[in-house]
């Protein structure tokens, strides 16, 4: 491993939380409510239960290959050529689907809600430049800055939750399970694909985490669960305040929620401040993506330093984010039809196959040892 740098498990946990909230805080509430109506929060809770299983699978995989990154694991399990090819395919497709679309989401959000006349390119470029800067400085710097930001995020989100809790209407949640349990399926899947399945990519950072007493796995689990619980709270709150109809119709209900804050006619119109929450979380999601992909490509092609890849990848990111989704309906369709099956493949099928292969390998090695004896 080149440029061995270490972050503590606590820092890894915070990064994971940021990564989990990431773009989901903007996209998930509307999407999941459109699928499951007032029961969206139940779907999210089911998603949490399944998601813990998924994370546990990733941890198991990481445990069998200590100090190896995702790409290195693929090379070990599938051989140098096949493993390399699959890793490259994985990286290339994920690069198109993950960070590119995150940046597109950010640009769209800003141009729809806050600065409609600003060209998206200039916003995305500015954002991508700080992402590249962060990744260039390395994972340690990113981890430390995430520690600096987490109190602010906690403060802003607590304020949001407290201030809008005056507008809650409990009847908005009724009737519970109107369409029955089974109808929640699509909503659960979409929640998993937004909050849990992309976290597979965090195995690229895993070897950087100080893992003396197997704390890294726990950090991954707790970080994800924390992010997920936050998402559930926000979904619940949005439905309680706006009701399912308005939530599903709204493009960015989280932002609408922040707009709703009005305490005694003087503490109000805080939405731009609350919006900084997802600027920060999106920043870390993008930075982690960019770090993971440049490190992965460096490992596939045995480059000495991943840093040389940051600028080209970052520029590609900005360019692609301009036309990856030609319009909003295309993006919404894509979220449902492409992103969900795609993440199910990369976040569930691939790790499952890898786990099976590594189990077989262990068995064979054991047999060999037995034969020798």
């Amino acid at each position, binding site marked *: 491993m080149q440029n061995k740098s270490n972050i503590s498990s606590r820092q890894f946990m915070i990064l994971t939380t940021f990564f989990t909230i990431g773009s989901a805080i903007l996209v998930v509430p509307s999407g999941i409510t459109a699928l499951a109506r007032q029961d969206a929060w139940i779907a999210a809770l089911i998603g949490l239960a399944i998601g813990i299983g998924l994370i546990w699978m990733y941890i198991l995989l990481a445990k069998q290959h200590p100090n190896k990154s995702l790409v290195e694991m693929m090379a070990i399990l599938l051989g140098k050529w096949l493993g390399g090819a699959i890793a490259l395919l994985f990286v290339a497709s994920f690069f198109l689907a993950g960070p590119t679309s995150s940046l597109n989401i950010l640009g769209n959000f800003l141009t*729809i*809600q*806050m*600065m*409609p*006349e*600003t*060209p998206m390119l*200039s916003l995305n470029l*500015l954002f991508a430049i700080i992402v590249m800067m962060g990744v260039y400085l390395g994972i340690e710097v990113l981890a430390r800055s995430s520690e600096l930001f987490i109190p602010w995020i906690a403060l802003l989100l607590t304020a949001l939750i407290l201030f809008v809790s005056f507008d809650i209407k409990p*009847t908005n949640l*009724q*009737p519970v399970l*109107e369409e029955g349990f089974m109808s929640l399926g699509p909503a659960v899947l979409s929640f998993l694909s937004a909050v849990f399945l992309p976290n597979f990519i965090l195995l690229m950072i895993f070897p950087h985490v100080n893992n003396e007493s197997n704390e890294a796995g726990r950090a991954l689990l707790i970080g994800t669960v924390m992010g997920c619980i936050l998402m559930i709270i926000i979904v619940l709150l949005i439905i309680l305040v*706006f*009701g399912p*109809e*308005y939530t599903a*119709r709204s493009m960015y209900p989280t932002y*609408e929620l922040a*707009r*709703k804050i*009005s305490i005694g006619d003087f503490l*109000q*119109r805080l939405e731009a401040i609350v919006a900084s929450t997802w600027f920060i979380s999106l920043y870390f999601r993008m930075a982690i993506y960019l770090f993971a992909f440049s490190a992965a490509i460096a490992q596939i092609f045995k480059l000495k330093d991943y840093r040389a890849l940051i600028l080209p990848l970052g520029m590609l990111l900005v360019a692609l984010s301009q036309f990856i989704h030609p319009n909003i309906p295309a993006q919404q369709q894509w979220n449902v039809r492409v992103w969900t099956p795609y993440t199910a493949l990369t976040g569930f099928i691939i790790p499952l196959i890898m786990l099976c292969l590594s189990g077989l390998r262990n068995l064979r090695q054991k047999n060999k040892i037995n034969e020798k004896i």
Partner: protein
Amino acid sequence: MIRSTEKGMGMMIRRASAIVLILAMIMPLAGCWSRKELNQLAIAVGAGIDKKGDHYRLSIQVVDPGEVASKNGGANRAAATLFTAEAETVFEAARKMSRVAPRKIYFSHLRMFVIDEILAKEGIGPVLDFLSRDHEFRTDFYIVVTRDSTAEDVLKIMTPLEDIPANKLYFSLESSEKNWSPSLTVTLDELIQDMTLKGKQPVLTGLKITGDKKVGKTKRNIENIETYSKLQYSGLAVFKADKLIGWLNDTQSKGYNYIRGLVQSSVGHVPCENGGGNVVTEIIRTKTDMKGLIQKGQPLIKISVYIEGNVAEVSCSDLDLNKESSIFEIEKRDEESIKGFMLSAIKKTQEDFKVDTFGFGEAIRRTHPAFWKTIKEDWEERYFPELPVHITVDFKIRRLGTVNNSFLKDMEE
């Protein structure tokens, strides 16, 4: 010696490059792309919409900041001004306004949105889409319907106390909902939700101009102690989806608010037992519980209202307030009177309007979702007009104010 100058040079270069870098950073940090300073914006506080033929007529009440901020009375101008424009769609009208308005209209601080009665009868749906789609609108402004006048006229009336008429409308609607309760604040998200639900239809508060409209539009209106013309909330407009179909009067509106559990505080009176006066009670808190039930395969609504109040005014000469039994007596008659309000509202909507303004259908959907699905389609035609509604009112009088028996009781005649 030489070395130290070299060191000095290095420092110089570093310092110079740092300054250049800082200056370079100023450029991207200078601010938003399309920033607009406060003095380039016309802040809209009230908006009204009328229909003229197949055109929408949009009227926007804009704050005159110079007039509001100046301490010594300003230049004797009105604190707000009105711009109007007509176009086939609302957004086009808003943009067309740039022909008359000196600045770009900024909608984020909108307080009141007034819809014309005639337009409301044709349907408000097409107007509301723009409000929910455009990013400048928040959802915290109130929506009302005019009664017997156009929205444009309403926004032209000068108001006393509050310099900006839209602010007057905003605060007066809020305080009327809190203290008197035949009116109701409705925001955009609530209205849209009600329009889309099958088992709940929207209502909006009505707004009337009283007195002489012509004088009301001039500054003369606020020069006297009694203004010539006033803006007054009156009744609730009942909608079927997005079309206005009728009005509830003040008592029915009050009943409506009791049914929906929206009454925070109100005042009610019952006549004395032996006639010749009233006992007035101030209601300080209420709680309404609406339940949808099924009885013998038919839907049924149960409403229980819990009300706490104080005796506020007594004009009966023979009422002994020191006895608990007379308190019970007042409670009982108050219960009857409030139940009467509620029943008259229900009767009016069931017989005349045949639309579920109370959300009875939603109440059934909440408790019996499966049953609701089977009756959903015929709800308004078949089930709602015949729906039995059971009301129980529990009125509790706690305090008597600062005295016990009225002096009227001992007054020599």
